[in-house]
């Protein structure tokens, strides 16, 4: 790779790493695992940089990151991830008035299987349409829909009164 291409990769990585780490943190629930995931995805992108730099490098690195995370989870035998420690407590201003629900939702999200969590992150955090989510994850739109449905149903099961509370507070 020539110096110019290397410089462009450096610029791309520097600009996008923060957003990628945030998405990776949502996938892993852990800062170190998120850094490792982003680093691995960027390393794979660097190896392919001469061929993808004119196309969509961000789409490539995102796809690598999500697929690597999901395949890692599959290799582990679809084990449910359990948090070793309690989530980092940070003080946020309770502007919505239902911090308890948010905390419960946060715990429930981190306990979802990775494939379902990945779909939720792409749909609700990255605001991607179903078709694009399917492209990133390398699956069909039907799979995206079913995973989303299962994930939201699971969250409703875990937080049975959440919707009612939210409706009343609207």
């Amino acid at each position, binding site marked *: 790779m020539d110096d110019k291409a*290397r410089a462009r*990769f*450096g610029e791309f*990585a*520097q600009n996008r*790493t*923060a957003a990628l*780490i*945030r*998405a*990776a*943190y*949502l996938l892993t629930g852990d*800062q170190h695992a*998120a*850094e490792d995931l*982003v*680093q*691995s995805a*960027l*390393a*794979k*992108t*660097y*190896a392919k940089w001469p061929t993808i730099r004119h196309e969509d490098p961000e789409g490539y690195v995102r796809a690598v990151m999500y697929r690597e995370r999901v395949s890692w989870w599959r290799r582990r035998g679809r084990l449910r991830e359990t948090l070793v420690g309690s989530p*980092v407590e*940070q003080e*946020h201003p309770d502007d*919505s008035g239902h911090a308890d*629900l*948010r905390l419960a*939702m*946060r715990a429930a*999200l981190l306990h979802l299987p990775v494939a379902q969590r990945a779909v*939720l*992150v792409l749909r*609700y*955090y990255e605001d991607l349409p179903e078709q694009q989510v399917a492209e990133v994850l390398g699956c069909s739109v039907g799979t995206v829909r079913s995973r989303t449905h299962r994930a*939201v149903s699971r*969250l*409703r099961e875990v*937080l049975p009164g*959440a*919707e009612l509370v*939210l*409706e009343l507070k*609207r």
Partner: protein
Amino acid sequence: MNTPIDDLIRSTLTDLAKEAVPMNLTDSAVARARRRRTLTVSVGVAGVVAALMVGTPLALAVSRDAPPPSAPADQPPVDFPSPVPISPVPSPPVNLPSPVPISPVPSPPVDSKGPGTGS
């Protein structure tokens, strides 16, 4: 249409993402890519060397155990193909004219007494 739980999922994910600490991973990613490439090349070279180390003695052993090539035998009769196809069917009899005329004259009568039996 967004349901309340959709909004809650969205806002919770946004809050959760804020906990991540952004940092520059460019140099470490490049170093990792180089390490991976070096490892790939090393494994490839090691594989080729291993294949040569196993394959070369085997090839030599096989060539040593093979019987020597046989001496050339005497010239076997060679059947050259005939330019004209030979048919096994006999040719029909042809009445060729004889070079010596054959007279149909009967042979003279033979004396029944025979020689030396004169009176």
